[in-house]
């Protein structure tokens, strides 16, 4: 992981609606956006940022890029990510919602072969409070500090950051891993990264019902994570089928030996209990739990 105030950032889809809106906000937060890419829009700077037709042209002109943030339309995301990987960019954040899952599978295969860290799709991105914003987190909700925040949600992540900030518990980093079925980086990957991150002393994990991400994360925490973790879970009361994962995914999870009840709030809650991870009852309870686990360290 290499996310600091010195990171050189590229925006793919800088002239797309969301790219145009959020690029100045990222810049205002101090993020070093060194170039944008917009095929056909090369040569016309946006917000004083040079814009190129191709990623390779941007690199030829501005030099090494640490991270690309992708705002292109859903069916163009796969190509944009593959172009960034081919141009040796090794951290990619996909904000766009609605990317077909098989496109993400192809990106993932390439990312794994090239050891590229990909976040998203359908996510608010990453914020390192006080240093850089890669995505659409509302920076005013965040405060520099020692709590790493990993979440499947968007706005719920902001809610929890806000509670931490109000309690004076700053954040080392907050990552929205995304809400889509195929996520390019998982809770486990980020748990491992934050476990190794010197700036992070405790981790808050924000899950939802559906899928088996939380169950797998809980097992992983029990096995290899030494830093204290606090969890929050949304969807106890969700009507059946409304936010639930797809039956097929549940079938597959069952086969993977994760139990028949996988995906439900109960299953996730029990998994965290087995892993001895305290689960907050409400967002406003999270700061207390974080303080408690930090005291126990």
């Amino acid at each position, binding site marked *: 992981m290499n996310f600091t105030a010195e990171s050189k950032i590229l925006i793919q889809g800088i002239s797309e609606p*969301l790219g145009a809106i959020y690029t100045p906000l990222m810049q205002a937060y101090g993020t070093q956006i060194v170039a944008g890419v917009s095929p056909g829009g090369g040569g016309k700077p946006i917000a004083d940022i040079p814009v190129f037709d191709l990623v390779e042209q941007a690199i030829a002109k501005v030099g090494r890029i640490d991270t690309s943030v992708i705002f292109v339309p859903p*069916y163009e995301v796969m190509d944009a990510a593959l172009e960034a990987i081919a141009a040796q960019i090794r951290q990619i954040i996909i904000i766009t919602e609605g990317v077909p899952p098989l496109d993400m599978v192809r990106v993932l295969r390439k990312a794994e072969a090239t050891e590229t860290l990909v976040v998203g799709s359908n996510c608010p991105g990453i914020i390192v409070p006080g240093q850089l914003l890669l995505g659409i987190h509302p920076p005013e909700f965040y405060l520099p500090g020692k709590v790493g925040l990993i979440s499947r949600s968007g706005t*719920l992540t902001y809610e929890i950051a806000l509670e931490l900030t109000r309690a004076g518990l700053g954040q080392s980093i907050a990552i929205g891993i995304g809400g889509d079925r195929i996520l390019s980086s998982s809770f486990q990957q980020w748990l491992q990264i934050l476990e190794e991150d010197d700036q992070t002393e405790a981790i808050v994990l924000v899950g939802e019902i559906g899928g088996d991400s939380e169950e797998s994360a809980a097992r992983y925490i029990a096995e290899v994570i030494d830093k204290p973790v606090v969890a929050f879970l949304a969807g106890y009361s969700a009507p059946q089928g409304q936010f639930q994962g797809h039956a097929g995914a549940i079938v597959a999870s069952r086969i993977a030996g994760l139990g028949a009840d996988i995906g439900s709030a109960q299953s996730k809650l029990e998994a965290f209990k087995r892993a001895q991870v305290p689960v907050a009852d409400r967002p406003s309870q999270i700061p207390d739990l974080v303080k408690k686990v930090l005291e126990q360290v």
Partner: protein
Amino acid sequence: MELLEYQAKELFRQMGIPVLPSQRICQLQDIKQLTIPYPVVLKSQVYTGGRGKAGGIRFVENTIDAIAAAQMIFHLPIMGKYPEVLLAEAKYDADREFYLAVVLDGSERRPVLLGSQQGGIEIESQFDRLHQVIVDQEFSPYYARRLAIRMGLKGDLIQAVSAIVEKMYRLFATCDLDLVEINPLAVSPSGKLMALDGKVTVNDTALGRQALLSEFTHPLLLQGKAAQSQTSPIARVDLAGNIGVLCNGAGLTMATLDLLYKAKGRPGAFVDVGGEYRQSCPTSTLESRIQQGLDLLFESHDIQVILVNLLGSRLSCAEIAALIAAQVQQRGKYRSLPPIVVRCVGEELAQAKTTLESIGILATDYLDAAITETLSLLPVKQI
């Protein structure tokens, strides 16, 4: 988006997956035009499962039986749904029944091939007997053979079954499916294979780019609920209670509902006006989505209080307040509206509070306070 059996089978036929001769029955008189020789199977075309046990599948020996059976099936609700179409299909005597599927596995983050020699209606209780192969790299037919081997097949059946799995995978990949399932895959005594039932679910995100394909292959791909959900992305979900919730983002919506339940409140409907990063609904229209959402909640007669909970980097409390105030004043001219609690966070909160308090609406930046306030606005007996 799920397809009906006859639509799935049309795709199977185009991919070269063996299916029986069949005809669609849209009305009773279609039975007379049947060209399939009797005995024939009539099947209710509904999206839900369990239609066999519910009586939605009938074997008939002649036209008179067939008309009676079709009439019965047209009037038989399955999980509350009536079929608009029946499928008439040749009867087939299976020696054995296998299960085959290709499914997108979010946990493995890959497509997964599934198969079992014990297919048929009991498959749901037999998940443990399902064998799986993860398609970790780009698909090649050896993945299909690997599934056949794991299923315990021998000899010619290895190639025969893996050839069908290969076609299922190509359908899966070409049409951006979430799931393609054949259950049962009938095996005749001579080892011939036949897909007796089929299930296909198209990933909704891909509907926009499958238009061309669906024109070539199956116009029904773009019909039904998915097309609808694309044109009107804001929907109200009704629950059993009396509190209306308007929120942005699935996670925050679920957490807000959870908090209401935990405080002994009973949500009666919610509207998720969506995250900020969906390309299909650019942020610029968030205002109109909030307006649509409020109107949807106003339309529900069970709602006695509304909680609005909105968070995001580009949401100004003052603007939200102005928007809600204007809408309440406009709609309130003609009818009485339930009380509203607004939760939003930002520098202009003071201004928002002023705007909203002038029309009797409470605004707060604390979620817990908003929950408490919402419940306090319910008639006492309702709690």
